[in-house]
């Protein structure tokens, strides 16, 4: 059994290993390369920065406006359809951002059915009427908000559900109205969770390449790839990515500072909640509309369009879909288990010994989420290939047959990349679950002679069940949707659904990409529904 130090050391080693790719990318900052920077600074860099900031601001506002009210309504109020809406609101999570972008472009573009219909009906030509230009910064903001709000929704809802009823009741007994109690008690208590969800959505926004590239919006990320693909300059691309990372680090520090020493714990036992706030009449209609809108635009409309293309217009996938689905599913499942297990170990090490080295290295390990997948993949390739070469040298010295690239050329590289990329997701959910458990419970456990492992498995894991499941779900769905790292790191003859959808879409055969896209969505639904079951069971009807 580990003693307390043992756990910390173990956690630091794991976190350091996961930080390796991030460190590799950051280390490019110290390679001198001035010429291209000067050029970028003179021409496009300010555009990149402004567009990225506007994108962040827009998506941040969007996901909060969609995620928090829906989470509050479905966890605190009662209205018709609440139960199925509470899980259906998760569905957009299964929709990759670049796919929803392709789909809506197909619908809303000037050459799409809606505008063509308008022109046929009115006899107007292009430019004679106003229509929302989907291929724009605004379009990108809407698309990303629609598929990223579930991060905020999930985290906020889990927090609202895990909140001890008594604090709200105390608030009410002290004369707060229900709504006042929400603003003054429930929301501030849920703040760490909401911020965790928000920062996930924003990091994902910064890492997105597919959507902004397709819409022709020049952001910092498209700049990274322009530098990589256009200039063929990996070093400068990595430097841009490293500055992006530095920016994210700054934001997170700012948030930490604004929270300062405040801690949010609540009574661990979750007693049956007092009655939900009943909404009737107009209020009920508003509540249903508020919850239905994101579901409609984030899932039902695009999924219907995809389904239509897949069934009526696309080339069918054939039996190959079995292996595609199995590859995607098993990879996503394994990655989710690995990432969440590591997240639990790391969060727990931080909880027992929140000393600086432990916190710093864990924070480093989570930053892979803000990096575009391609950059993470390069950060993964470099150290793994180095290890491989060392192994080959060792084998040859021993006179054995060279083993080849057993790490960088195999699924190990992919799983490693997914962990690097998505550990932040798992950490966010697990930590916000853990933060709400009073430290006194740990003390009690320890005073009864339990080891740290026993405290994790007997006290924390059961209390954080829904946080852990949330983490598994998000990592699973994220890996399912993940494309760039998969594309570079996969072994020979290994395809996933996302790879298939991308290949057809990037060959400008959007309609033929629909069967693979809809399958990503369908496989992604499985854990969404499972998660719903397990959260719902914990709560009174």
């Amino acid at each position, binding site marked *: 059994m580990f003693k307390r130090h043992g756990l910390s050391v173990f956690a630091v080693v794991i976190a350091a290993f996961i930080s390796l790719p991030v460190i590799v990318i950051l280390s490019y900052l110290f390679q001198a390369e001035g010429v291209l920077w000067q050029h970028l600074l003179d021409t496009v860099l300010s555009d990149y920065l402004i567009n990225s900031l506007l994108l962040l601001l827009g998506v941040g506002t969007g996901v909060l406006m969609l995620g928090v009210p829906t989470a509050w309504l479905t966890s605190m109020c009662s209205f018709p359809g609440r139960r199925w809406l509470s899980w259906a609101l998760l569905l957009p999570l299964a929709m990759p951002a670049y796919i929803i972008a392709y789909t809506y472009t197909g619908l809303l573009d*000037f050459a799409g059915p809606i505008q063509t219909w308008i022109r046929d009906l009115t006899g107007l030509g292009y430019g004679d009427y106003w229509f929302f230009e989907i291929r724009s910064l605004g379009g990108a903001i809407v698309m990303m908000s629609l598929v990223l709000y579930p991060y905020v929704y999930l985290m906020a809802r889990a927090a609202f559900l895990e909140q001890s009823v008594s604090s709200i009741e105390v608030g009410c007994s002290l004369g707060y109205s229900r709504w006042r109690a929400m603003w003054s008690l429930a929301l501030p208590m849920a703040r760490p969770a909401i911020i965790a969800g928000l920062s996930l959505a924003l990091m994902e926004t910064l890492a997105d390449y597919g959507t902004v590239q397709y819409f022709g919006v020049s952001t910092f990320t498209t700049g990274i790839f322009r530098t990589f*693909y256009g200039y*063929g300059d990996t070093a400068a691309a990595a430097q841009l990515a490293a500055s992006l990372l530095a920016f994210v680090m700054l934001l997170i520090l700012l948030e930490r500072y604004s929270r300062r020493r405040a801690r949010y714990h609540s009574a661990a036992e979750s007693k049956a909640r007092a009655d939900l706030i009943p909404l009737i009449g107009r209020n009920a209609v508003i509540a249903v509309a508020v919850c239905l809108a994101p579901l409609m635009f984030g899932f039902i409309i695009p999924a219907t369009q995809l389904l239509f293309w897949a069934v009526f217009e696309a080339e069918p996938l054939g039996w190959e879909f079995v292996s595609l689905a199995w590859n995607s599913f098993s990879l996503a499942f394994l990655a989710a288990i690995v990432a969440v297990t590591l997240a639990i170990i790391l969060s727990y090490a931080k909880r027992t010994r929140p000393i600086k080295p432990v916190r710093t290295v864990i924070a480093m390990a989570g930053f892979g989420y803000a990096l575009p997948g391609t950059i993470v993949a390069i950060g993964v390739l470099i150290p793994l290939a180095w290890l491989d070469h060392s192994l080959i040298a060792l084998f040859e010295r021993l006179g054995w047959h060279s083993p080849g690239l057993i790490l960088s050329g195999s699924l190990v590289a992919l799983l490693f990349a997914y962990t690097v990329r998505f550990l932040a997701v798992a950490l966010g959910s697990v930590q916000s679950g853990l933060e709400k458990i009073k430290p006194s419970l740990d003390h009690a456990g320890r005073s009864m002679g339990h080891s740290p492992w026993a405290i994790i498995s007997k006290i924390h894991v059961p209390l954080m069940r829904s946080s852990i499941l949330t983490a598994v779900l998000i990592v699973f769905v994220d890996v399912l949707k993940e494309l760039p790292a998969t594309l570079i790191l996969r072994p020979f003859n290994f395809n996933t659904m996302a790879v298939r959808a991308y290949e057809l879409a990037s060959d400008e055969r959007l309609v033929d990409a629909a069967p693979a896209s809809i399958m990503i969505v369908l496989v992604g639904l499985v854990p969404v529904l499972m998660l719903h079951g397990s959260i719902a069971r914990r709560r009174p009807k």
Partner: protein
Amino acid sequence: MRSFNLINSLLISAITASILAVTSAQASGVVNVYSARKEALIKPLLDQFSNTTGIKVNLITGKADALLKRLQVEGSATPADLFITVDAGRLHRAKEAGVLKPVSVPLLEETIPKELRDEAGYWYGLTLRARPIIYAKDRVTPSDLSTYEALAEAQWGGRLCLRSSQSVYNQSLVAATIDALGASKTQSWMEGMVKNLAKAPSGGDTDQLKAVAAGVCDVTIVNTYYLARMINSSKQADQSVASQLAVFWPNQNGSGGLGRGAHFNVSGAGFTKYGKHPKQAQALLEYLASESAQAWYAEINNEYPVVEGVEVSSALKGFGAYKMDSIDLEILGQNNRQAVQLMDRAGWR
């Protein structure tokens, strides 16, 4: 503990799969390919090759620069034998990066014209892709069109659609123009075109075609196989777009650089420096340049064959014959970086 068993069996199957992938890639009678050509546009040929020769082909597809990076990092341990990509600039970049080796293949030197392959044999072109001007038949008379350069003139104000400068096809077009006109003229040409844009650049080549058909703009610059694909499409919407459009081959006459011919590019392949199966790789490359493979490209993806005398698709025939820019394709690669810089300066997003 059923879930544990599931995890266990997943782990075991993942590990065996990866070991299999690694070992099978090293067995004899195989060739390992890194391809920036999409799977749908290469796998059928590879399967055909395996059927006739019995040589198994292992394939990874991906973006050219990412695959190149993987090749570089893997170094001497790379399993890849052949690197296939779709742009002369990328082939040049791979050569510069030192991941390819020169191989003289007599059969290919005989069938593939000299200007479509690397002199020393670092890479061989496999298909040709032309990037002419496409116009709306009802709004543009062909006599108004002449050269790429003329698209910067004021008469095209608000009538031009262009794909983003992120597209390597556009980068190569600019790289070729730099060679013909010099940097400063190229930049002012692009500034003129940017002024003439009907909408900010977005989407792919197909989207530009749809935009012209929908009346957003009147002219665009697009690879021909996208138009040919729409002509051959079974979908009515695609056919209706294609029926409104026609190809104009620019820069056919004129003095100096202006008469250099229409811009084209190649897809091609090169032998990796550390490939372990050179014989099989050579067999595959020879197959890809064979008449039947060349005809397949022409028919399925409407690309022009590099081997003379191979029949092209009826859609390509409909576009007519044209004069190609006789530029040394190496130059596209050499000028690529400068091209992107100029595009940045000209404000071509």
